[in-house]
């Protein structure tokens, strides 16, 4: 290394040795002019404004993090797929701003979403994946406020269970941090540019002054290259305008010229007319100059051109002097750059420190910054307290993870995307806790990339979630167990049903068998086959016979009813014409009607086909019409009308009479088993009161409904409907 002071310090006490930065800065400052100072101030002012803004943001985010800690409660909700809310805890009620749990439970789950489609998407994903999933999603509170929540959600037994954490504030804080980072980066860049330009300019001015003061060197021209833009002339400085105007000099030191000099390192032009650089010096052919490249190591900084008075020949000593001068200047430029880098790094460290101390250490959560090689380069207070300073520089997984292995889904396995924020749930962190780690890709001060990680302990949430999962599992098991039990019970019930059915069959047999000898012998006696009988005997035998028949009817009704109750009555469903059935009934009841002064008429379309059991429909209409005949007003004619209508889906049959009618207070009892209004009981010619309850059962078996309207002394109307199409899976199957 040559001695710089020797050459550079012949007159001036100020050295161009650039030994220390403070020395140099002092030197440089002394050369700066007022104009520069003004623009410098203006730049500083804008930086201050930016910093102030940054500071404001900082405070805001601090406050927000405080709020965040206060509101970090875990909401739990369970809902059905349809959206009915089945369970909700206090925290969630508060989070969604419902006045009470009860009110929350009456709400529908999709209403809670800012975009209700989100719920469908989540459900579809859950159905596909069948495992716990986490989402960040915008929701609406009862008061219509939008909140951002982090929800962990699982589908089990067609129920959706979810834990919900309000991350609205955290989200905002994260965004603020990111914005803050941007601002700081911008400020940093502006600062660097200003500093660089300023320092270079000062250095060049100083050097050119020095050289031109030397005897024989009339003009110094230094062209410096911009750092980023390859070979662009950034800083041109001319101190003597003896021979050339600045414009001319600028023209001479064009891109091509600089390229050539940089390539040849040194060019001496003793006679421009003879030189290959002739075209550069056309205005003054006798012009002489020396051009030297300014370079250090492999870095090119620019070109130094020294112009001589016309006709002067450059001596060997002068050439070596110039060479040394160019070397020193190159070294100075190199040191300046190094200094800049160092300063920049220092400044960044300070900024980084400030940045972290101010923002990150105030966070209630653990925060770190990890570089691309997984080394921890920063930790906030929370983490520093937990892991100690010695953790910095270590691999993150060695510090945090129990198994000391890199996380499976480590974001650093992929290239970092600046500004991209993602969350990861990582179990097995210190003390076997589960953390939710939110990581954001950031630019590190050294120009490299890294990730900012915010750690949130969700062990408790996880526990709650697991508890919920276990509860669901347990519930599922219980439901399954119960289903098995129910199935078994159902089987038993079926067996019991069959037994009951057999009992009914047997009962029917046992009850009716003794009747046969009674009615049979009475019939034979009435016929006189067992000997001559008197008229009176015959009359009494008739009564006996009639009562035996009543008994038979009673038994049949009872058995029918019990079969109905067991739902064992088999319907033989076919397409049948209801109008035809009604006509059959009318015909078969004609004798009974006539003897009771009743006239039956039918109002109907020509044909009305419906899926039904012909025999049962006959029974229904017969029973109703029989009732209408029997409940007549004593000694008065009775008009009975069967009205059959067709709607889109049903056959509607309405039977009206002009009978005695049923008192209002008793109307709702007529379908009850064995119920008959008092007057009717007195009448000896009637059957048991089970009739209408059987009718109701039969109508319902067909999938229809029956209703009754009546006015005492005016008449009654019974209306029922039979669906035209057989019900799939209905009672009639």
């Amino acid at each position: 290394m040559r001695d710089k002071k020797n050459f550079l310090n012949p007159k001036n006490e100020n050295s161009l040795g650039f030994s220390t930065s403070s020395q140099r800065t002092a030197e440089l400052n002394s050369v700066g002019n007022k104009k520069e100072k003004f623009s410098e101030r203006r730049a500083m002012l804008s930086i201050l404004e930016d910093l102030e803004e940054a500071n404001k943001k900082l405070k805001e985010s601090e406050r927000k993090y405080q709020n965040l800690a206060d509101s970090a409660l875990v909401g739990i909700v369970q809902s059905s797929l349809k959206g009915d809310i089945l369970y909700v805890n206090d925290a969630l009620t508060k989070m969604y701003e419902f006045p009470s749990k009860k009110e929350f439970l009456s709400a529908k789950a999709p209403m809670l979403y800012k975009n209700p489609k989100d719920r469908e998407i989540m459900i579809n994903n859950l159905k596909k994946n069948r495992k716990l999933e986490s989402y960040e999603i915008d929701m609406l509170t009862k008061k219509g406020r939008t909140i951002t929540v982090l929800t962990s959600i699982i589908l089990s037994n067609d129920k959706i269970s979810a834990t919900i954490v309000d991350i609205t504030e955290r989200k905002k804080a994260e965004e603020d941090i990111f914005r803050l980072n941007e601002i700081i980066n911008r400020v940093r860049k502006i600062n660097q540019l200003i500093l660089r330009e300023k320092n270079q300019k000062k250095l060049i001015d100083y050097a050119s002054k020095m050289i031109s003061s030397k005897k024989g060197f009339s003009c110094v021209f230094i062209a410096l290259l911009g750092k980023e833009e390859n070979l662009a002339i950034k800083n041109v400085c001319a101190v003597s305008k003896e021979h050339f105007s600045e414009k001319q000099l600028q023209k001479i030191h064009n891109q091509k010229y600089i390229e050539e000099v940089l390539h040849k390192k040194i060019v001496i032009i003793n006679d421009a007319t003879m030189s290959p650089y002739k075209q550069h010096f056309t205005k003054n052919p006798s012009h002489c100059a020396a051009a030297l490249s300014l370079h250090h190591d492999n870095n090119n900084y620019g070109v130094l051109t020294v112009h001589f008075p016309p006709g002067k020949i450059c001596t060997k000593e002068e050439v070596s002097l110039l060479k040394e001068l160019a070397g020193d200047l190159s070294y100075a430029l190199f040191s300046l750059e190094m200094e800049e880098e160092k300063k920049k790094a220092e400044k960044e460290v300070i900024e980084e420190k400030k940045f972290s101390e101010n923002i990150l250490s105030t966070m209630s959560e653990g925060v770190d910054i990890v570089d691309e090689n997984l080394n921890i380069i920063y930790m906030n207070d929370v983490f520093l307290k937990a892991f100690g300073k010695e953790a910095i520089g270590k691999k993150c997984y060695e510090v945090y993870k129990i198994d000391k292995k890199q996380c499976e889904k480590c974001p650093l396995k992929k290239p970092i995307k600046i500004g991209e924020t993602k969350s990861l749930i990582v179990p097995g962190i210190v003390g076997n806790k589960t953390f939710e780690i939110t990581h954001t890709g950031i630019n590190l001060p050294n120009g490299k990339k890294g990730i900012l990680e915010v750690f949130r302990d969700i062990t408790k949430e996880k526990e709650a979630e697991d508890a919920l999962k276990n509860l669901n599992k347990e519930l599922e098991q219980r439901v399954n167990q119960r289903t098995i039990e129910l199935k078994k019970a159902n089987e038993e019930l079926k067996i019991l049903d069959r037994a009951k059915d057999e009992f009914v069959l047997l009962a029917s047999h046992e009850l009716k068998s003794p009747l046969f000898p009674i009615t049979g012998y009475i019939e034979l006696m009435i016929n006189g086959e067992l000997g001559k009988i008197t008229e009176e005997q015959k009359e009494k035998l008739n009564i006996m016979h009639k009562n035996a028949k009543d008994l038979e009817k009673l038994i049949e009704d009872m058995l029918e009813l019990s079969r109905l109750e067991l739902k064992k009555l088999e319907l033989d469903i076919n397409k049948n014409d209801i109008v035809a059935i009604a006509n059959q009934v009318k015909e078969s009841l004609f004798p009974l009607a006539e003897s009771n002064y009743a006239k039956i008429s039918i109002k109907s379309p020509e044909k009305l086909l419906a899926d039904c059991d012909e025999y049962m429909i006959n029974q229904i209409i017969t029973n109703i019409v029989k009732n209408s005949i029997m409940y007549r007003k004593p000694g008065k004619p009775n008009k009975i009308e069967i009205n059959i209508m067709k709607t889109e889906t049903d056959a509607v049959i309405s039977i009206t009479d002009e009978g005695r009618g049923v008192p209002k207070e008793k109307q709702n009892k007529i379908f009850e088993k064995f119920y008959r209004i008092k007057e009717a009981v007195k009448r000896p010619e009637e059957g048991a009161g089970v009739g209408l309850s059987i009718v109701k059962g039969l109508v319902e078996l067909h999938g229809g409904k029956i209703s009754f309207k009546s006015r005492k002394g005016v008449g009654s109307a019974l209306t029922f409907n039979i669906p035209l199409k057989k019900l799939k899976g209905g009672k009639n199957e």
Partner: protein
Amino acid sequence: MNEKILIIEDRADTMNLLKFALEKQNYAVISAENGKRGLNALEKYPIDLVILDIMLPDISGKEILKKIRADKKYSRVKVIVLTAAKISEKEQKEFFNIGAQGFLFKPVQIEVMRNEIRKILEKR
């Protein structure tokens, strides 16, 4: 020659009633109180018509009917099922399919029964 009717019926009172009512009509009545005896009587006598109860102590009426129809030598024997049990129409059809000619429910009117028997025997 009087037509021979076999009654398979376990209730004595019912049997006596039927016997009385049918003998009055000049039928020769043979009685059997269970399925086994019924089948024996069928073997022994040239029976024209069987009045068959369904619920019997040993063999069910349906089984007896099947046995009768399984043997070609009884192809001319007519069968009327007479029961007090509630038998669905579907099941009644089944009896007809196996080979019954009539189906009566107790307590049937004596005259109705007599007409049915006459009608069936006349068809031969």
